[in-house]
Protein backbone atom coordinates (compact mmCIF):
# COMPACT_ATOMS: atom_id res chain seq x y z
CA UNK A 1 0.00 0.00 0.00
CA UNK A 2 1.06 3.57 -0.58
CA UNK A 3 0.89 6.76 1.37
CA UNK A 4 0.27 9.64 -1.01
CA UNK A 5 1.46 13.06 0.10
CA UNK A 6 -0.21 16.00 -1.61
CA UNK A 7 1.60 19.31 -1.42
CA UNK A 8 -0.95 22.08 -1.02
CA UNK A 9 0.86 24.49 1.23
CA UNK A 10 0.79 27.52 -1.04
CA UNK A 11 -0.98 30.70 -0.03
CA UNK A 12 -1.78 32.10 -3.45
CA UNK A 13 0.68 34.96 -3.38
CA UNK A 14 2.10 34.33 -6.84
CA UNK A 15 -1.28 34.39 -8.54
CA UNK A 16 -2.46 37.37 -6.50
CA UNK A 17 -5.66 35.62 -5.49
CA UNK A 18 -7.50 35.65 -2.19
CA UNK A 19 -7.42 31.88 -1.97
CA UNK A 20 -4.48 29.64 -2.84
CA UNK A 21 -4.46 28.29 -6.37
CA UNK A 22 -5.11 24.74 -5.21
CA UNK A 23 -8.58 25.89 -4.18
CA UNK A 24 -9.34 27.90 -7.30
CA UNK A 25 -12.03 26.46 -9.55
CA UNK A 26 -10.80 24.48 -12.51
CA UNK A 27 -13.42 22.90 -14.75
CA UNK A 28 -16.00 23.58 -12.09
CA UNK A 29 -14.32 22.28 -8.98
CA UNK A 30 -11.41 23.18 -6.73
CA UNK A 31 -8.11 22.28 -8.33
CA UNK A 32 -6.99 19.98 -5.53
CA UNK A 33 -10.16 17.89 -5.90
CA UNK A 34 -9.08 16.75 -9.36
CA UNK A 35 -6.20 14.82 -7.85
CA UNK A 36 -8.01 13.69 -4.72
CA UNK A 37 -10.93 12.25 -6.69
CA UNK A 38 -8.56 10.26 -8.90
CA UNK A 39 -6.68 8.88 -5.91
CA UNK A 40 -10.02 7.69 -4.61
CA UNK A 41 -10.22 5.23 -7.50
CA UNK A 42 -6.84 3.56 -6.85
CA UNK A 43 -6.99 0.57 -4.51
CA UNK A 44 -3.29 0.66 -3.66
CA UNK A 45 -3.62 4.13 -2.15
CA UNK A 46 -3.85 3.36 1.55
CA UNK A 47 -3.95 6.90 2.82
CA UNK A 48 -3.71 10.48 1.64
CA UNK A 49 -1.79 13.13 3.51
CA UNK A 50 -2.28 16.74 2.54
CA UNK A 51 0.21 19.38 3.58
CA UNK A 52 -1.89 22.51 3.80
CA UNK A 53 -1.60 25.95 5.35
CA UNK A 54 -3.47 25.93 8.66
CA UNK A 55 -5.75 28.74 7.47
CA UNK A 56 -7.23 26.47 4.79
CA UNK A 57 -7.56 23.20 6.68
CA UNK A 58 -11.27 23.68 7.39
CA UNK A 59 -11.93 24.52 3.76
CA UNK A 60 -10.12 21.36 2.70
CA UNK A 61 -12.06 19.25 5.21
CA UNK A 62 -15.30 20.71 3.89
CA UNK A 63 -14.39 19.72 0.33
CA UNK A 64 -13.34 16.23 1.38
CA UNK A 65 -16.74 15.77 3.02
CA UNK A 66 -18.72 17.31 0.15
CA UNK A 67 -17.05 15.07 -2.42
CA UNK A 68 -17.54 12.06 -0.14
CA UNK A 69 -13.90 11.00 -0.29
CA UNK A 70 -13.47 7.77 1.64
CA UNK A 71 -9.71 7.24 1.83
CA UNK A 72 -8.12 7.85 5.24
CA UNK A 73 -7.05 11.51 5.22
CA UNK A 74 -4.48 13.28 7.35
CA UNK A 75 -4.00 17.01 7.03
CA UNK A 76 -0.67 18.31 8.23
CA UNK A 77 0.66 21.84 8.41
CA UNK A 78 2.45 23.13 5.37
CA UNK A 79 6.02 24.22 6.00
CA UNK A 80 7.81 27.45 5.27
CA UNK A 81 9.25 25.88 2.14
CA UNK A 82 8.05 23.27 -0.30
CA UNK A 83 10.73 20.93 1.02
CA UNK A 84 9.50 21.37 4.57
CA UNK A 85 5.90 20.68 3.54
CA UNK A 86 6.98 17.46 1.86
CA UNK A 87 9.01 16.52 4.93
CA UNK A 88 6.02 17.05 7.24
CA UNK A 89 3.85 15.00 4.92
CA UNK A 90 6.30 12.10 4.64
CA UNK A 91 6.78 12.13 8.41
CA UNK A 92 3.05 11.56 8.81
CA UNK A 93 3.01 8.64 6.34
CA UNK A 94 2.37 5.21 7.78
CA UNK A 95 3.49 3.16 4.77
CA UNK A 96 7.09 2.72 3.62
CA UNK A 97 6.09 3.33 0.00
CA UNK A 98 5.36 6.99 -0.46
CA UNK A 99 4.20 8.99 -3.44
CA UNK A 100 4.54 12.75 -3.51
CA UNK A 101 2.37 14.87 -5.75
CA UNK A 102 1.43 18.51 -5.81
CA UNK A 103 -2.10 19.90 -5.91
CA UNK A 104 -1.06 22.36 -8.60
CA UNK A 105 -0.71 19.49 -11.10
CA UNK A 106 -4.38 18.58 -11.50
CA UNK A 107 -3.99 16.78 -14.82
CA UNK A 108 -2.21 13.73 -13.46
CA UNK A 109 -4.13 10.61 -14.44
CA UNK A 110 -4.96 7.50 -12.48
CA UNK A 111 -2.87 5.65 -15.06
CA UNK A 112 0.19 7.70 -14.20
CA UNK A 113 -0.22 6.91 -10.51
CA UNK A 114 -0.66 3.23 -11.36
CA UNK A 115 2.41 3.15 -13.62
CA UNK A 116 4.48 4.75 -10.89
CA UNK A 117 3.37 2.07 -8.45
CA UNK A 118 4.05 -0.66 -11.03
CA UNK A 119 7.59 0.60 -11.65
CA UNK A 120 10.10 -1.80 -10.08
CA UNK A 121 12.50 0.90 -8.94
CA UNK A 122 12.33 2.06 -5.33
CA UNK A 123 12.46 5.67 -6.43
CA UNK A 124 10.96 7.10 -9.58
CA UNK A 125 9.78 10.34 -11.08
CA UNK A 126 8.08 11.47 -14.21
CA UNK A 127 10.19 13.47 -16.61
CA UNK A 128 9.72 15.15 -19.93
CA UNK A 129 12.19 15.81 -22.71
CA UNK A 130 13.04 19.48 -23.09
CA UNK A 131 12.01 20.71 -26.53
CA UNK A 132 13.77 24.05 -26.26
CA UNK A 133 17.29 25.31 -25.62
CA UNK A 134 18.44 25.86 -22.07
CA UNK A 135 21.65 27.80 -21.55
CA UNK A 136 23.61 29.06 -18.60
CA UNK A 137 23.22 32.76 -17.94
CA UNK A 138 25.85 34.78 -16.14
CA UNK A 139 25.60 38.53 -15.53
CA UNK A 140 23.03 38.88 -18.29
CA UNK A 141 25.21 37.04 -20.79
CA UNK A 142 25.24 33.50 -22.09
CA UNK A 143 27.69 31.76 -19.83
CA UNK A 144 27.60 28.20 -21.06
CA UNK A 145 25.79 25.64 -23.14
CA UNK A 146 23.80 22.73 -21.76
CA UNK A 147 23.29 19.54 -23.73
CA UNK A 148 19.53 19.41 -24.19
CA UNK A 149 19.52 15.67 -24.76
CA UNK A 150 20.94 15.06 -21.30
CA UNK A 151 18.36 17.22 -19.51
CA UNK A 152 14.94 16.30 -18.28
CA UNK A 153 12.01 18.40 -17.12
CA UNK A 154 11.06 16.83 -13.78
CA UNK A 155 7.35 16.26 -13.20
CA UNK A 156 5.44 14.95 -10.25
CA UNK A 157 4.17 12.51 -9.06
CA UNK A 158 7.26 10.79 -7.67
CA UNK A 159 7.69 7.76 -5.48
CA UNK A 160 10.20 6.98 -2.77
CA UNK A 161 10.96 4.73 0.14
CA UNK A 162 10.06 6.66 3.26
CA UNK A 163 13.11 5.81 5.42
CA UNK A 164 15.94 7.07 3.18
CA UNK A 165 13.88 10.08 2.14
CA UNK A 166 13.33 11.11 5.76
CA UNK A 167 17.05 10.74 6.40
CA UNK A 168 17.75 13.01 3.45
CA UNK A 169 15.32 15.66 4.71
CA UNK A 170 17.00 15.49 8.10
CA UNK A 171 20.43 15.95 6.66
CA UNK A 172 19.31 18.79 4.38
CA UNK A 173 17.87 20.60 7.40
CA UNK A 174 21.18 20.25 9.21
CA UNK A 175 23.09 21.43 6.16
CA UNK A 176 20.69 24.29 5.49
CA UNK A 177 20.15 23.08 1.94
CA UNK A 178 16.88 23.58 0.07
CA UNK A 179 15.99 21.63 -3.06
CA UNK A 180 13.22 22.45 -5.48
CA UNK A 181 11.91 18.89 -5.52
CA UNK A 182 12.63 15.60 -3.82
CA UNK A 183 14.51 13.53 -6.40
CA UNK A 184 17.22 16.22 -6.33
CA UNK A 185 17.33 15.99 -2.57
CA UNK A 186 17.52 12.20 -2.49
CA UNK A 187 20.06 12.01 -5.29
CA UNK A 188 22.25 14.62 -3.63
CA UNK A 189 22.48 12.67 -0.40
CA UNK A 190 22.34 9.05 -1.52
CA UNK A 191 23.20 8.83 -5.24
CA UNK A 192 20.32 6.37 -5.27
CA UNK A 193 19.12 5.24 -8.68
CA UNK A 194 15.97 7.12 -9.55
CA UNK A 195 14.00 5.90 -12.55
CA UNK A 196 12.58 8.49 -14.95
CA UNK A 197 9.22 7.54 -16.43
CA UNK A 198 8.04 9.38 -19.54
CA UNK A 199 5.78 12.23 -18.58
CA UNK A 200 3.29 14.14 -20.67
CA UNK A 201 3.10 17.82 -21.61
CA UNK A 202 -0.48 17.80 -20.32
CA UNK A 203 0.65 17.32 -16.73
CA UNK A 204 1.40 21.00 -16.30
CA UNK A 205 1.97 22.76 -13.03
CA UNK A 206 -0.59 25.53 -12.73
CA UNK A 207 1.52 28.49 -11.79
CA UNK A 208 0.17 31.61 -13.45
CA UNK A 209 -3.31 32.82 -14.29
CA UNK A 210 -2.84 31.88 -17.93
CA UNK A 211 -2.32 28.26 -16.86
CA UNK A 212 -5.89 28.21 -15.59
CA UNK A 213 -7.11 29.15 -19.06
CA UNK A 214 -4.93 26.55 -20.73
CA UNK A 215 -5.96 24.10 -18.05
CA UNK A 216 -9.62 24.27 -19.04
CA UNK A 217 -8.67 23.08 -22.51
CA UNK A 218 -6.38 20.35 -21.19
CA UNK A 219 -9.13 19.13 -18.90
CA UNK A 220 -11.70 18.99 -21.66
CA UNK A 221 -9.54 17.41 -24.32
CA UNK A 222 -7.21 15.24 -22.28
CA UNK A 223 -8.83 14.29 -18.99
CA UNK A 224 -12.46 13.99 -20.03
CA UNK A 225 -11.53 12.57 -23.38
CA UNK A 226 -9.05 9.97 -22.21
CA UNK A 227 -8.90 9.40 -18.46
Amino acid sequence: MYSVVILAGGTGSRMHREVPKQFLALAGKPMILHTLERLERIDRVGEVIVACHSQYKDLLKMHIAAYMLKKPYTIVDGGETRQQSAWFGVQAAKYEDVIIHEAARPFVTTGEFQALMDCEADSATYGLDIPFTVSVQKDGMIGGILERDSLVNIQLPQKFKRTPLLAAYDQAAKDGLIFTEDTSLLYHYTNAPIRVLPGTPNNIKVTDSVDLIAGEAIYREYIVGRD
Partner: protein
Amino acid sequence: MRTCIITGAGSGIGRAAAIAVAEAGEFEYLALIGRSMDKLEETKSRMQTVSRVELFAYDLGDLEGIPALVERIYGETGQIDCLLNIAGYTDPQPLLTTTLESMRLTYETNVFAPFMLIRECTKYMRLNQDGAKILNVASTAGITPRPGWLSYASSKAAVVSMSQTLAEELAEYGIRVYCISPGRCATALRRKLAPNEDQSKIMQPEDVGRIICQLVSRSEHCLDGQNIVVRKKL
Protein backbone atom coordinates in the same frame (compact mmCIF):
# COMPACT_ATOMS: atom_id res chain seq x y z
CA MET B 1 -28.85 -4.13 -9.93
CA ARG B 2 -29.07 -1.73 -12.89
CA THR B 3 -31.44 0.96 -11.73
CA CYS B 4 -33.42 3.71 -13.40
CA ILE B 5 -35.34 6.43 -11.54
CA ILE B 6 -38.19 8.08 -13.41
CA THR B 7 -40.09 11.11 -12.13
CA GLY B 8 -43.49 12.15 -13.38
CA ALA B 9 -44.18 8.48 -14.10
CA GLY B 10 -47.88 8.73 -13.34
CA SER B 11 -48.90 10.40 -16.58
CA GLY B 12 -47.89 11.93 -19.88
CA ILE B 13 -44.32 11.71 -21.08
CA GLY B 14 -43.15 10.22 -17.78
CA ARG B 15 -45.58 7.35 -18.04
CA ALA B 16 -44.77 6.76 -21.72
CA ALA B 17 -41.03 6.82 -21.03
CA ALA B 18 -41.42 4.42 -18.10
CA ILE B 19 -43.32 1.96 -20.26
CA ALA B 20 -40.81 2.22 -23.11
CA VAL B 21 -37.81 1.84 -20.81
CA ALA B 22 -39.40 -1.15 -19.12
CA GLU B 23 -40.03 -2.87 -22.43
CA ALA B 24 -36.46 -2.21 -23.58
CA GLY B 25 -35.29 -4.24 -20.61
CA GLU B 26 -31.94 -2.53 -19.96
CA PHE B 27 -32.68 -1.96 -16.29
CA GLU B 28 -33.38 -4.54 -13.62
CA TYR B 29 -35.02 -2.07 -11.25
CA LEU B 30 -37.32 0.80 -12.13
CA ALA B 31 -38.20 3.37 -9.47
CA LEU B 32 -41.32 5.23 -10.57
CA ILE B 33 -41.94 8.51 -8.78
CA GLY B 34 -45.19 10.45 -8.97
CA ARG B 35 -47.62 12.27 -6.73
CA SER B 36 -50.47 9.79 -7.08
CA MET B 37 -50.07 6.14 -6.17
CA ASP B 38 -53.18 5.32 -8.20
CA LYS B 39 -51.63 6.78 -11.32
CA LEU B 40 -48.35 5.01 -10.70
CA GLU B 41 -50.24 1.75 -10.31
CA GLU B 42 -51.91 2.45 -13.64
CA THR B 43 -48.50 2.99 -15.26
CA LYS B 44 -47.18 -0.22 -13.77
CA SER B 45 -50.20 -2.16 -14.97
CA ARG B 46 -49.42 -1.13 -18.54
CA MET B 47 -45.83 -2.35 -18.38
CA GLN B 48 -44.64 -5.58 -19.87
CA THR B 49 -41.42 -6.30 -18.06
CA VAL B 50 -39.58 -8.78 -15.93
CA SER B 51 -37.77 -5.94 -14.17
CA ARG B 52 -38.61 -5.08 -10.60
CA VAL B 53 -40.86 -2.01 -10.55
CA GLU B 54 -41.19 -0.04 -7.33
CA LEU B 55 -43.61 2.85 -6.88
CA PHE B 56 -42.89 5.95 -4.83
CA ALA B 57 -45.82 8.29 -4.24
CA TYR B 58 -43.88 11.47 -3.59
CA ASP B 59 -44.49 15.18 -4.05
CA LEU B 60 -41.26 16.61 -5.47
CA GLY B 61 -42.17 19.93 -3.88
CA ASP B 62 -40.81 18.32 -0.72
CA LEU B 63 -37.25 19.11 -1.65
CA GLU B 64 -35.83 18.35 1.76
CA GLY B 65 -36.92 14.74 1.52
CA ILE B 66 -35.21 14.02 -1.79
CA PRO B 67 -31.83 12.92 -0.35
CA ALA B 68 -33.57 10.31 1.81
CA LEU B 69 -35.66 9.15 -1.15
CA VAL B 70 -32.58 8.63 -3.32
CA GLU B 71 -30.69 7.00 -0.48
CA ARG B 72 -33.59 4.61 0.05
CA ILE B 73 -33.55 3.56 -3.61
CA TYR B 74 -29.78 3.17 -3.57
CA GLY B 75 -30.06 1.13 -0.39
CA GLU B 76 -32.36 -1.30 -2.17
CA THR B 77 -30.39 -1.61 -5.39
CA GLY B 78 -26.76 -0.83 -4.58
CA GLN B 79 -26.36 1.37 -7.66
CA ILE B 80 -28.09 4.09 -9.65
CA ASP B 81 -27.51 4.08 -13.38
CA CYS B 82 -30.09 6.38 -14.84
CA LEU B 83 -32.23 9.32 -13.75
CA LEU B 84 -35.06 10.65 -15.87
CA ASN B 85 -36.27 14.05 -14.69
CA ILE B 86 -39.62 14.26 -16.42
CA ALA B 87 -42.06 15.61 -13.83
CA GLY B 88 -43.27 19.07 -14.77
CA TYR B 89 -45.58 21.79 -13.51
CA THR B 90 -47.10 24.84 -15.14
CA ASP B 91 -49.34 27.70 -14.16
CA PRO B 92 -49.45 29.91 -17.25
CA GLN B 93 -50.03 33.57 -16.40
CA PRO B 94 -49.07 36.90 -17.89
CA LEU B 95 -46.43 38.80 -15.96
CA LEU B 96 -48.77 41.05 -14.01
CA THR B 97 -50.77 38.16 -12.59
CA THR B 98 -47.83 35.85 -11.99
CA THR B 99 -47.47 35.51 -8.25
CA LEU B 100 -44.29 34.76 -6.42
CA GLU B 101 -45.94 31.62 -5.12
CA SER B 102 -46.70 30.44 -8.66
CA MET B 103 -43.15 31.15 -9.71
CA ARG B 104 -41.86 29.28 -6.69
CA LEU B 105 -44.07 26.23 -7.28
CA THR B 106 -43.03 26.06 -10.91
CA TYR B 107 -39.33 26.29 -10.14
CA GLU B 108 -39.61 23.79 -7.31
CA THR B 109 -40.90 21.07 -9.59
CA ASN B 110 -39.14 22.00 -12.82
CA VAL B 111 -35.73 23.16 -11.58
CA PHE B 112 -35.07 22.62 -7.87
CA ALA B 113 -36.32 19.03 -7.68
CA PRO B 114 -34.26 17.95 -10.72
CA PHE B 115 -31.27 19.72 -9.23
CA MET B 116 -31.68 17.88 -5.93
CA LEU B 117 -32.23 14.56 -7.64
CA ILE B 118 -29.19 15.02 -9.87
CA ARG B 119 -27.00 16.03 -6.96
CA GLU B 120 -28.05 13.11 -4.81
CA CYS B 121 -27.92 10.55 -7.62
CA THR B 122 -24.50 11.78 -8.71
CA LYS B 123 -23.11 10.84 -5.31
CA TYR B 124 -23.83 7.22 -6.21
CA MET B 125 -23.47 7.37 -10.00
CA ARG B 126 -19.84 8.46 -9.55
CA LEU B 127 -19.12 5.05 -8.07
CA ASN B 128 -20.27 3.15 -11.18
CA GLN B 129 -17.57 1.47 -13.24
CA ASP B 130 -19.45 1.89 -16.50
CA GLY B 131 -20.90 5.35 -16.05
CA ALA B 132 -24.47 6.56 -15.79
CA LYS B 133 -27.01 8.72 -17.60
CA ILE B 134 -29.20 11.62 -16.60
CA LEU B 135 -31.93 12.92 -18.87
CA ASN B 136 -33.80 16.13 -18.22
CA VAL B 137 -36.98 17.07 -20.04
CA ALA B 138 -37.00 20.77 -20.87
CA SER B 139 -39.28 22.27 -23.53
CA THR B 140 -39.19 24.31 -26.70
CA ALA B 141 -40.80 26.93 -24.45
CA GLY B 142 -37.40 27.26 -22.82
CA ILE B 143 -35.64 28.32 -26.00
CA THR B 144 -38.13 30.69 -27.64
CA PRO B 145 -40.20 33.57 -26.21
CA ARG B 146 -43.57 32.50 -24.79
CA PRO B 147 -45.60 35.50 -23.63
CA GLY B 148 -48.00 34.43 -20.91
CA TRP B 149 -45.92 31.42 -19.88
CA LEU B 150 -43.22 33.28 -17.97
CA SER B 151 -42.75 30.89 -15.07
CA TYR B 152 -42.84 27.74 -17.17
CA ALA B 153 -40.74 29.00 -20.07
CA SER B 154 -38.04 30.49 -17.86
CA SER B 155 -37.90 27.36 -15.70
CA LYS B 156 -37.35 25.23 -18.80
CA ALA B 157 -34.61 27.57 -19.97
CA ALA B 158 -32.96 26.86 -16.64
CA VAL B 159 -33.25 23.15 -17.30
CA VAL B 160 -31.49 23.52 -20.64
CA SER B 161 -28.67 25.50 -19.05
CA MET B 162 -28.37 23.16 -16.08
CA SER B 163 -28.15 20.17 -18.41
CA GLN B 164 -25.46 21.65 -20.60
CA THR B 165 -23.40 22.77 -17.63
CA LEU B 166 -23.63 19.43 -15.89
CA ALA B 167 -22.86 17.51 -19.06
CA GLU B 168 -19.38 19.02 -18.85
CA GLU B 169 -19.06 19.04 -15.09
CA LEU B 170 -19.96 15.38 -14.72
CA ALA B 171 -18.21 14.05 -17.81
CA GLU B 172 -15.13 12.93 -15.90
CA TYR B 173 -17.31 10.60 -13.84
CA GLY B 174 -18.64 8.95 -16.97
CA ILE B 175 -22.06 10.49 -16.35
CA ARG B 176 -23.75 11.61 -19.56
CA VAL B 177 -26.35 14.34 -19.22
CA TYR B 178 -29.04 14.60 -21.86
CA CYS B 179 -31.61 17.30 -22.40
CA ILE B 180 -34.63 17.09 -24.64
CA SER B 181 -37.00 19.89 -25.46
CA PRO B 182 -40.29 18.50 -26.70
CA GLY B 183 -42.55 20.73 -28.71
CA ARG B 184 -46.31 20.41 -28.54
CA CYS B 185 -47.15 17.09 -26.94
CA ALA B 186 -50.53 15.73 -25.94
CA THR B 187 -50.26 15.82 -22.17
CA ALA B 188 -52.30 17.21 -19.30
CA LEU B 189 -49.65 19.86 -18.81
CA ARG B 190 -49.96 20.91 -22.43
CA ARG B 191 -53.72 21.13 -21.95
CA LYS B 192 -53.14 23.84 -19.32
CA LEU B 193 -50.89 25.76 -21.69
CA ALA B 194 -53.13 25.41 -24.76
CA PRO B 195 -56.67 24.52 -23.63
CA ASN B 196 -58.27 24.72 -27.07
CA GLU B 197 -55.79 22.62 -28.99
CA ASP B 198 -56.82 19.40 -30.74
CA GLN B 199 -54.40 17.02 -29.06
CA SER B 200 -55.06 14.24 -31.52
CA LYS B 201 -53.08 16.15 -34.13
CA ILE B 202 -49.94 16.83 -32.17
CA MET B 203 -47.04 14.71 -30.93
CA GLN B 204 -48.06 11.97 -28.51
CA PRO B 205 -46.31 11.12 -25.22
CA GLU B 206 -45.39 7.71 -26.64
CA ASP B 207 -43.39 9.41 -29.40
CA VAL B 208 -41.30 11.24 -26.81
CA GLY B 209 -41.12 8.21 -24.54
CA ARG B 210 -39.52 6.14 -27.31
CA ILE B 211 -36.91 8.84 -27.94
CA ILE B 212 -36.08 9.02 -24.25
CA CYS B 213 -35.70 5.26 -24.22
CA GLN B 214 -33.29 5.41 -27.15
CA LEU B 215 -31.22 8.15 -25.53
CA VAL B 216 -30.74 6.28 -22.27
CA SER B 217 -29.92 2.99 -23.96
CA ARG B 218 -26.37 1.73 -23.57
CA SER B 219 -25.66 2.11 -27.27
CA GLU B 220 -26.23 5.87 -27.38
CA HIS B 221 -23.15 7.96 -26.68
CA CYS B 222 -23.21 10.94 -29.04
CA LEU B 223 -26.14 13.15 -28.11
CA ASP B 224 -25.43 14.18 -24.53
CA GLY B 225 -24.61 17.76 -23.59
CA GLN B 226 -26.86 19.35 -26.18
CA ASN B 227 -30.44 20.49 -26.20
CA ILE B 228 -32.29 18.05 -28.43
CA VAL B 229 -35.47 19.48 -29.86
CA VAL B 230 -38.17 16.84 -30.31
CA ARG B 231 -40.85 18.19 -32.52
CA LYS B 232 -43.36 16.61 -34.85
CA LYS B 233 -43.30 18.44 -38.16
CA LEU B 234 -46.50 17.14 -39.71
